[in-house]
């Protein structure tokens, strides 16, 4: 399954509009590479040059990298290898279930598992940093499984 979430792209761009120093595009829609910047809001259109590093998603209370996530990480690694100078920050996120403190630890394990997989694909660990936001920065503010599934993620930011 591709994590093609058309609604998210627009939402991501709205989030980005308020984020001046970093650029990021969510979704794993590689066939539409650049979609993110196409649908971006005018306020931020100039700063998003089209790096597409797709989010990867996790099961409840899990930091295991699934087969689908491995595919996405391979695509992310390919982009990073063609942009070797580019440092990437991996954010670990959780859904709102469970408790705040535990989720910060869990979010860190998610970011670390994504990082470790990218390193096995040949990405230098010096180019990768991680930060956990636990359940503090949900991507979808909804209170249902559909929202939670989108929020259990590792998100990739280029600096």
């Amino acid at each position, binding site marked *: 399954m591709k994590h093609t979430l058309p609604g998210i792209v627009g939402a991501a761009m709205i989030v980005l509009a308020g984020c001046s120093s970093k650029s990021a595009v969510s979704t794993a829609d590689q066939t539409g590479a650049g979609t993110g910047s196409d649908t971006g809001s005018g306020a931020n259109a100039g700063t998003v040059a089209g790096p597409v590093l797709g989010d990867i998603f996790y099961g409840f*209370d899990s930091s295991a990298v699934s087969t689908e996530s491995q595919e996405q990480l391979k695509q992310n690694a390919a982009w990073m290898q063609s942009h070797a100078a580019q440092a990437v920050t991996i954010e670990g996120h959780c859904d709102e279930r*469970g*408790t*705040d*403190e535990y989720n910060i*630890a869990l979010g*860190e394990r998610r970011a670390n598992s994504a990082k470790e997989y990218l390193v096995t694909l040949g990405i230098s660990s010096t180019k990768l940093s991680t*930060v*956990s936001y636990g359940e503090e920065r949900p991507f979808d503010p909804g209170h249902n499984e559909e929202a939670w599934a989108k929020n259990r993620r590792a998100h990739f930011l280029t600096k």
Partner: protein
Amino acid sequence: MKISKNSLAGFSLALICMLFLPFLLRAEEAREYIAIRKQGAGRIAVVLDRTAAKSGKESEWARSIDGTIRSGLDFTGIFNLLPAPMNMRSMPGGPLNFGALNSVGAEIYTGGTMTKQSGQVNLNMEVYDALSGKQLMKKQYSGAETQLRSMGLRFCVDLVELLTGNKCLLFGSKISFVSTKSGFKEIYMCDFDGQNVVQLTNTRSISLTPAVSPDGNYIAWTDYTSGRPDLYIRNLATKATASVGKPGVSIDPSWRNGSNELATTLSFEGDQEIYLVRPNGTISRRLTFSRGIDVSPSFSPDGSKMAFVSQRSGMPQIFVQDLQGGAARRLTFSGNYNTQPSWSPGGDKIVYSSLQKNGEINIFIVNADGSGLLQLTRGARDNESPSWSPDGRMIAFMSNRQGRKKLFVMNADGSNQRALFQMDGDQQQPSWSIVR
């Protein structure tokens, strides 16, 4: 009920004491009252009389004091405040009619007078055993006009200690918490009853999990001002602030009783493990060594044992570990997701939150040996972050039962659940403590 007779000599002595001492606690009578009470349990039925005052200004102060004392006593959950019977006195200012008090079920009568003397406010309070008619306490509280609340609360402390025989830690305690009132998660602190809210941080990032040291001198919390969750420790008096400054996360501090150190989860060595940290941010020693998440420490009153959350058995469960060594013992076996342990000030109970199959998060209480599991909240969405009042009588927690995240309190048996106060935004992660 047994009524002991005072000897004439004892009575004279008491009279002399009354003339020379502003504070008179009739220890024998109070002990007798407490001994008799214990057979009954239940709430103590109290008639709290209107404080008498002469002039307009003094009456205003008296009404303010009455409000403080009434809400303070009510907050404890140990009193049943009865309305004063009409025929309590045969005439205004006349002697108390204890028969009338008995007829409405009053066990205790308390009342007083408010006077002004050379710019100072004097509150003279008396407490009587309504059944025997004996005076249990007579005390004067003095202060400036601006200190009415603290005068009223000082009387509440004395009354609780008089009638329960236990030290009253409630009225001087504070609750630190997280609020989004400003648009960012910041740390705030308020009095035990939600009054006098003060904003402590202005990080404009994400500030989380405040914890005040047992001596009341430091507050620790985690925030993202450095771009990642780092731990900060601030001296409340001097405002000097230290940070841990290690890579990875530094989250969820809890102070170790009987020491000047806190425990917190750090991940600079790769795994999320619990460490003891000094107030200057340096590491004292590592406490956990298991693969996977170890988080949310809480210490026994003597500081010898630590309850904490561990992933070592798969899903998060609560474990107890002796700090002198030995294997951690799993405490919780009911439920697949148990977190946020808080060890009671009495040492016998541990309260925690559990994510249940129906999707609710509820608060449970269990004996420190794992027996006697009880559910304290149910059917009211998410109830998290339980924190004991310093006297162990109450538990503060976060609930979103009314929609947004708000602070609640309940008695330790789960009864009398109510919102602590009204404040804009979300409030969460209450931490109850003594602050000097």
